[in-house]
């Protein structure tokens, strides 16, 4: 049992717009931190710039709100230096995937043990409404009055492409599953990405309309659970099957399809092919949006490897302080 409650992690009065998805997510984060039970002083929340990057001001832990896009790099230095810190790196889609894209992919590649929160509202909110790297093609915004002419990133695809080992997704308004993926991200050793779908009530309301309400999710989302068959729908009447190189939606009981024919979720599968297909499902193609832990594969972490190598070399080499280091050089004596 954790000795903490959500209250122990709360601080200040959030200044986000009423109804902003950030409020919902913050409550889930407080709750998850309490359930995880790492002391506030051993927890660090590190963010960049943007609406969501204000979040560290509202947690009673060590925290840094840094410069635009650099949170993953700053968090990397902190984690390597003190592995006891449980680090939450909070970014928005602009901060994390545009200006901070390089640090995002390299955090994945190195597999540094960070919990990376990607609050995806598909818009730049704080600068008052420009399209972001996750805005769909044709998206009309202040900086794209005639619609964008570029394709968006899919965060999961970027994460997998950078050899990420953990990817989970939740909807900001969906409290319990959000707490669950945050706990799973903490439990996973390595870079763990949680994509949080959220609306910007001012500049991009309804962007996640299909799954933003309970009713919407009942119809349009599938909650993936390890080892469970993939079933969804208001009456749990649909399922997912593999067909050739693709997935297909089937109705259970129709055409002889039974529960046994359905795909069973395996987030621990090293091969990410099917996990990626699940992560990329969209309602416009007739698929449900995948929620929950999509990929969770164990792998060596960067911070462990860095510190283990130091210990290994300490045991191997004969010099361990500055004076002994000097002795390793060719020297001469002036008498």
């Amino acid at each position, binding site marked *: 049992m954790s000795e903490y409650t959500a209250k122990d992690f709360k601080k200040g009065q959030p200044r986000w717009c009423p109804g902003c998805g950030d409020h919902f997510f913050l409550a889930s984060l407080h709750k998850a931190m309490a359930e995880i039970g790492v002391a506030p002083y051993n927890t660090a929340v590190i963010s960049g710039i943007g609406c969501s990057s204000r979040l560290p001001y509202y947690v009673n832990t060590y925290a840094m709100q840094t410069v635009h896009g650099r949170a993953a790099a700053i968090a990397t230095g902190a984690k390597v230096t003190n592995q006891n810190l449980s680090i939450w790196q909070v970014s928005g889609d602009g901060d994390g995937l545009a200006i901070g894209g390089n640090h995002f992919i390299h955090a994945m590649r190195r597999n540094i043990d960070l919990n990376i929160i990607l609050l995806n509202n598909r818009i730049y909110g704080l600068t008052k409404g420009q399209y972001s790297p996750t805005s769909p093609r044709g998206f009309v915004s202040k900086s794209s009055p005639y619609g964008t002419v570029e394709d968006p990133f899919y965060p999961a695809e970027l994460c997998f492409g950078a050899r990420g080992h953990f990817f989970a997704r939740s909807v900001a308004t969906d409290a319990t599953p959000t707490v669950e993926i945050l706990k799973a991200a903490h439990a996973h050793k390595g870079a763990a990405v949680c994509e949080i779908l959220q609306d910007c009530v001012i500049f991009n309301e309804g962007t996640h309309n299909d799954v933003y309400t309970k009713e919407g999710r009942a119809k349009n989302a599938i909650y993936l659970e390890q080892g469970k068959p993939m079933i969804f729908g208001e009456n749990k009447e649909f399922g997912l099957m593999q067909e050739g190189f693709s997935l297909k939606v089937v109705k259970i009981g129709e055409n002889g399809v039974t529960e046994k024919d359905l795909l069973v979720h395996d987030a621990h599968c090293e091969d990410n092919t099917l996990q990626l297909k699940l992560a990329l499902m969209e309602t416009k193609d007739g698929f449900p949006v995948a929620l929950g832990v999509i990929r969770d594969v164990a792998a060596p972490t960067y911070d462990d490897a860095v510190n283990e190598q130091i210990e290994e070399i300490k045991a191997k080499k004969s010099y361990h302080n500055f004076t002994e280091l000097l002795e390793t050089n060719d020297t*001469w004596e002036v008498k």
Partner: protein
Amino acid sequence: MAEKMEIKELDQVVVRFSGDSGDGMQLAGNIFSTVSATVGNDISTFPDYPADIRAPQGSLTGVSGFQVHIGEGKVYTPGDKCDVLVAMNAAALKTQYRYAKPSACIIIDTDSFCEKDLEKAAFNSNDYLGEMNIDPDRVIACPITHMVKECLADSGMDNKAILKCRNMFALGLVCWLFNRDIEIAANFLKEKFVKKPAIAENNIKVINAGYDYGHNTHSSVAGTYKIESKAAAKGRYMDITGNKATSYGLIAAAEKAGLRLFLGSYPITPATDILHELSKHKSLGVTTVQCEDEISGCASAIGASFAGALACTSTSGPGVCLKSEAINLAVIDELPLVIINVQRGGPSTGLPTKSEQTDLLQALYGRNGESPMPVIAATSPTNCFEATYTAAKIALEHMTPVILLTDAFVANGSGAWKLPDIAELPAINPPYVTPEMKDNYTPYFRNPDNQVRYWAIAGQKGYTHILGGLEKDNKTGAISTDPENHNLMCHLRAEKIAKIEVPDVEVEGCVDDADLLIVGFGGTYGHLYSAMEELNKKGYKTAHAHFEFINPLPKNTAEVLNKYKKVVVAEQNLGQFAAYLRSKVDYFVPYQFNQVKGQPFVVTELVAAFEGILKK
């Protein structure tokens, strides 16, 4: 061939080894300087290499040089021009001869002066000496390639490996010329190749062959040379480059402060050797992260600082451009951080392997907002140790990022360095939070004497807090846009830096009655000092004041600058330090000497220019 060999006594000599960038000229030069230092000579070295790793063999752009200055007393520079030039091929002779004194002895490998070689080096005929007006009597023309092949015929080595030993033949010849004990060189190679004794043995064989060639033929020169040693300060010494001394300064500072050393870095010439050096020393607990970019190098260091490391990032000018935003985060967060800028020629990619002092104003002012930050400039390869140690001490004790400026010249050059005793280095005492502050700590609570805030390290119980890039309230640490508070914070940050104590600037030479004060900063110390000495030898009265501490400036700066009739500020830029001093010292109107050639100053040119000023 001279009938009778003569041994001339010299008080100093400059040798320049040159060849293709793959010819191992740096190793030959290093061994020669170590051998000289071991017998008690002072040394100063400078490698001059092209940006290409391996330019086409024998081409003019692929020539790499390594200059060694040895002397019986103290030597301050690698020397203007050389007394001996080793040119391993035609291109080397073509490009490097301009660094030779008119009287210099030239050693060439005649096997690399064939038709094709001459063509690549843009000679018009076989008479390459004639084309360059070189007196053949000054040339030791030796078929080095041929001799090395013969020497190693039975070694079982392949042709490529054999050709790599040509540098050792040249080294042996130079050792003969200067009456050097080749046993010392042999020992150096045995240690260097301790795990590959066969390689050591073959190299030693070639050195001996080179030495014997000189000895047996007496070559074509009139005599050999001897450089006596004058006793330097007693103690143990080593030959150290500036980049290595910088790395050692960081290691010593971390150990003294009892902190983990963290370097976040991205490869960039000419700073990468710091990353290389520190990466080797994991047995001392040093953590190096080779980052995805320059920004991350600085950003990861800031994270490490937040988590309680002595955090550093090493780079060159273009890297500082990219790091500027993150550096400013460290300024407003008031976190300790050492930023090392090994300056190179700019702007943009500029001259990556060459040396300049053109990033001074960038270090002082190249950030948005009021962003005060200490700036220190190392004055010589060996001074890099002390300058870096001091930069780390200031960063940790004053809770601020510090920029350390070195340059390609001091970073790659080397000198004889007296090994320090870590017990005698100044203590480093960061302003850690005290138990009384527990549970009511706010990050901008300051020591009223020096305005330094107290450091709570992430992970310490009872001091949770947030730092950030937004302006904070001076008392609570909460985000604040209050006009009075911002004004106060800007003043406090400036005052904190202004209050850092730095030593007075020293004046050397004719301290009391100089007609001209020569002023410089950073890596030009040796050249300006030598120019001052030369002028005083000629009967002029000059003095030299050299600045290591740029921001804040030493307290006696105005007093020193105003004391002398004439002052010249000499720097390897278009007048950045002069402009800075003029902004800090009222009525200061110096003469200026500015050169931006990517090459170290030439002492004779300085002397001529300063004579001109003295005569005005």
